[in-house]
């Protein structure tokens, strides 16, 4: 069964040897190294329950990174800086719709991603048709979304997660948290969509060469609008899941998710120019970032040391992965 998953993930042209040295594989080695390092420094780090709880923390970043993956893959220097704010408003809106009642779950599942979809579509429309650079548009959108969440809550978010959702967020089956199972399902679905469906192939095509795609009959502009919309919807859905974990809503929970979602893509070997890469790469990036952070927190380092470590790591990675000595 594992082989199936690999077959989905690698293209037919990669030899096993090439795969062992690919960026994806390096990320896997890095995860293992990190956990070993964690065990050396903090005995007990590699206990099953601890590993599970660290992985569970990275689920939210992982879901956000899925949307970000779609946007970055779609090319045109695509990026979505509003995912953090949409996550925040997703938390707040889900809490509002759910109001602690199990019956409201379908309603929340329908409306929250729709709001995220709407915000994403607006960003996508401006980026595709008015040709505002994605960085700026999504940045401004982040302000708009953040402002909206302030306006509708008037500073005090209401509602909370219903019992069923809380068990999903915090419960385990066979000692594996439900959220991780959910994430594994999501990974399988996402990888399948990206590599095996027409939509996924279109995404790669538009991302690697939008002119060719346009000439082949793909409505590139319209396609990109939907990609941004989907990213928004996924981010809002991540907000719902985050609420299931925390129980009560807080404002601005998503602020710390935006840049790490981009960083995790870089770690996972997804090119920011688009057209190249795999969701699994982003997943490994998320796990690396979250694990590193949890090691640093467990070591009781100050925020300063955490930031310096993260910054240095990212810098080295960025140079090593994408850098080449330019001919000039």
């Amino acid at each position, binding site marked *: 069964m594992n082989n199936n998953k690999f077959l989905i993930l690698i293209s037919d042209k990669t030899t096993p040897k090439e795969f062992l040295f690919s960026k994806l594989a390096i990320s896997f080695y890095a995860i293992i190294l990190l956990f070993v390092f964690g065990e050396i420094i903090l005995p007990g780090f590699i206990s099953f329950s601890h590993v599970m709880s660290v992985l569970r923390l990275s689920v939210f970043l992982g879901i956000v990174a899925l949307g970000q993956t779609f946007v970055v893959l779609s090319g045109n*220097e695509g*990026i979505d800086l509003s995912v953090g704010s949409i996550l925040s408003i997703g938390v707040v809106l889900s809490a509002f719709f759910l109001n602690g009642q199990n019956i409201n779950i379908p309603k929340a599942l329908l409306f929250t991603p729709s709001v995220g979809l709407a915000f994403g579509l607006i960003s996508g429309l*401006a980026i595709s048709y*008015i*040709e*505002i*650079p994605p*960085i*700026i*548009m999504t*940045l*401004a*959108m*982040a*302000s*708009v*979304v*953040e*402002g*909206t969440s*302030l*306006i509708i809550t*008037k*500073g005090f978010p209401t509602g909370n997660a219903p019992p069923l959702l809380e068990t999903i967020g915090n419960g385990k089956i066979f000692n594996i948290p439900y959220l991780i199972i959910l994430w594994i399902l999501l990974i399988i679905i996402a990888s399948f969509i990206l590599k095996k469906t027409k939509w996924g192939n279109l995404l790669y095509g538009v991302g690697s060469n939008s002119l060719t795609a346009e000439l082949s009959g793909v409505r590139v502009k319209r396609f990109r609008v939907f990609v941004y919309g989907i990213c928004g919807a996924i981010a809002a859905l991540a907000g719902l899941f985050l609420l299931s974990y925390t129980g009560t809503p807080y404002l601005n929970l998503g602020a710390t998710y935006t*840049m790490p979602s*981009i*960083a995790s893509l*870089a770690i996972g070997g997804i090119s*920011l*120019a688009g057209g190249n890469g795999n969701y699994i790469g982003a997943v490994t990036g998320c796990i690396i970032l979250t694990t590193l952070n949890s090691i640093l927190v467990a070591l009781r380092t*100050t*925020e*300063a*040391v*955490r*930031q*310096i*470590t*993260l*910054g*240095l790591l*990212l*810098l080295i990675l*960025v*140079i090593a*992965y*994408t*850098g*080449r*000595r*330019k001919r*000039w």
Partner: protein
Amino acid sequence: MEKYIKWKNIYQNPSFPSFIILIAIIILNAFLQHNFFTYRAFKSNLLTFTPLILTSVAQGLVILVGCVDLSLGATISLVTVLMASLMGDSLFSMVIVVFIGSGLALLMSFINGFIISYFDPPPLLTTYATSVLWFGIALFFMPTPGGYIPSHFSKMYRSDLFPRFPVVLLFLIGAFCFLFFMSKTRFYKHIYAVGGNEEAAYANGVNVFITKIKVFLLSGIFIALASICVVAQTATGDARSGLSFSLNSVAASIIGGLSFSGGRGSIIGPIMGGLILGLLINVLYFANITSFYQEFMKGIIIIFSLAVGAIPKYLKTRSL
């Protein structure tokens, strides 16, 4: 020699829409704030806006050459933290610390420039990484806001050189003169060449590597100036003081009509963009918009300015 003004050159300039928006915002601000045209309001506005304007110029230079620099804010933070940690009461100390701070700003910009020019990584991620790094270092040396800035340093910054001529204006005028003289050099044309099409510039003999490094160093000069303004204005060192500058300066540059891929736009654009953003906050305050709506309105107005800024591009393609 032409004896008439080419109007087409003016209104098709990418930075022209931002000029219109700037006039509109000034009018709006004057309408909402009754004492807008008094010297006091003028000076207070100037004191508030200058750091952002200088940072926007720094960012604009980097964007013109085809990159982006998200670490400008963190650079300002670290330099102000350094200056607030070292400054003493004597004139000698003030001058030395200002020089050290400027040197640090130049060094940090050089590091960014070197990495981006030599290794060719994506500027967005690289400068994000360095911004996290600088922020961490600043936090390390000053976990909570503090430090010491002699009160006469602050006072000197806030005072007037001549009657009706604030010291702050010196910074801005100095920056403008510098930009003006720079715009006559060949280096300036190289910036646009590299920003527009790197390969073509290289093929035409432009030293792309040196040009990019020079641009980052140049932006470092403006960041140094901005840091002096911030530290004099707030009289403390705060590791979080620069955080908003990075993204705001990018927004200011794009509102000012700069093209994100580089090579297009006037250097006046970021200046106007910075003014627009600054006055925007004023407008939102004086229109009695509650703080809940301020973030929202800021985003909406930025999007609106960007959409307006896209109009000359649209008109150009239509006339074809």
